């Protein structure tokens, strides 16, 4: 356990180094958030009754999405992990007395938390200070706040265990291009448009998938869009998917390591 914590610390400190990049990133995230709110605002004006969320819920959704972009984004997991499989350097990792799965897991989480730590506070503070239609609001009750506090780390675990599956698939495909994994996760987790905007039969199906257990749930629980018992159910689904994908990842990893071929050169 200690060695994984050490890896976590190395990655975390490493991630904190890029402060200028974080600053430039902040500007982008603000602009992005504003544009999303303006676009959906135009649809809201066209037909408020057809808008499936309360507008203030939607605004909170967007700002937390921007603040936690790097926590929940299904991309940029472990580029060096994939690289080591393709280049054959994985042989060194296999010689080390630690689990590769756990190691990637620790590194991935550390990188995400470090990048988020640099960016989330300024986004949230400014979002709370903005004038009316853009202003971010507090959750409607303490219960919602508490549930989202549980849901956020769970969402992170689901994303990371999903990225692990993506990494492990490289053993089989030997390709650096796993963009399908990323786009599917981003789209069905509500990265393009929030899940309430999906057409009806599709929304019901997607809400049961692991994708919905990613950013979709913490964001909608915080804003109050998923409230009361539904929030409890949502968190239970997150726990289920987290456990399932961790298990699947561990099993797949064992299977792939049995037949692993270290690429030469």
């Amino acid at each position, binding site marked *: 356990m200690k060695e994984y914590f050490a890896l976590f610390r190395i990655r975390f400190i490493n991630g904190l180094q890029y402060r*200028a*990049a974080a600053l*430039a*990133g902040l*500007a*982008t995230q603000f*602009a*992005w958030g504003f*544009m999303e709110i*303006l*676009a959906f605002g*135009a*649809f809201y004006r*066209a*037909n408020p009754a*057809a808008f*499936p969320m309360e507008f203030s819920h939607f605004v909170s959704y967007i700002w937390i999405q921007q603040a936690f972009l790097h926590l929940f984004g299904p991309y940029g997991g472990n580029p060096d992990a994939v690289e080591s499989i393709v280049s054959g350097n994985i042989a060194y990792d296999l010689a080390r007395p630690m689990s590769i799965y756990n190691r990637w897991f620790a590194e991935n989480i550390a990188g995400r938390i470090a990048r988020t730590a640099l960016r989330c506070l300024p986004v949230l503070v400014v979002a709370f200070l903005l004038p009316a239609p853009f202003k971010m609001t507090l959750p409607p009750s303490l219960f919602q706040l508490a549930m989202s506090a549980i849901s956020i780390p769970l969402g992170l675990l689901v994303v990371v265990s999903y990225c692990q599956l993506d990494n492990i698939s490289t053993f089989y495909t030997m*390709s*650096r*291009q796993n*963009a*399908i994994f990323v*786009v*599917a996760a*981003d*789209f069905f987790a509500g990265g*393009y*448009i929030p899940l309430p*905007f*999906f*057409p009806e039969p599709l929304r019901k199906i997607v809400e049961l998938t692991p994708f919905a257990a990613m950013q979709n749930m913490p964001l909608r629980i915080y804003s109050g869009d998923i409230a009361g018992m539904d929030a409890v159910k949502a968190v239970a689904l997150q726990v289920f998917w987290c456990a399932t994908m961790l298990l699947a990842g561990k099993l797949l990893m064992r299977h792939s390591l049995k037949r692993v071929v270290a690429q030469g050169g």
Partner: protein
Amino acid sequence: MKLYLKYFAINLKSQMQYKATFLLNIFARIVLAFATVAGVWFMFLRFNEVEGFTLPQVLLCTAVTTMSFALSETFARGFDIFPRLLGNGQFDRILVRPRGVIFQVLASQMEFARLGILVQAVFVFCYAIPNSGVHWTWDKVLTLVLMVACGAAVFFSLFIVYAAFAFFTTEGLEFMNILTHGGREFGRYPYAIYGNGVLRFLTFVVPLALFQYYPLLYLLEKERSVLYMFTPLIALLFLLPAYGFFRLGLRRFKSTGS
């Protein structure tokens, strides 16, 4: 021009060496592009129109923007990865060769997999062109061609500006992404739906709306003045400051020494 075609052939051949990767790459681009279209489509299943535009009319915008972006991204790839060229010293090699700098950066990198997005654009055009309610005449067709061509030029200028910033910072600047990738992503709707402030910015500062929103009004006969047909040509003026900025950066360029 002959030299460029030679570079073109070399780039194409080298990327064709890894056919599986190339196809996967293209496939990934297509999926990515359809995610954007699905997002627009889902919105219109719920709302019939936005700011007076229907789904096919909005998709016309989506296709124009993605097509011009794909074209410029394919051919201006060298400027997109320019910070890397500066960082690893490749740019120094470019400087000592007896050909134009911009030409060489342009010719050294082409990413044909990005053309996967064109597949999406063509599909969307096939749906949007007959359904948008546009009465197609020769001038409307010309307008559409101008929109795509000049749009590619505007995105190209933005990539040059992005590259020019790297002369000052060596790092790539993420905030430029809001104009390049953001311009594509938000260009899925007519830029006017973002309100007057944004529209004015995208008209007078970074002329993205000049090749998308204003000529669209002409296509839909919401504006009949010929001026609206030729606004994409005005957007071409943006190449000048972009080029000037690049020259400025080039003049104070110091090698990174690696």
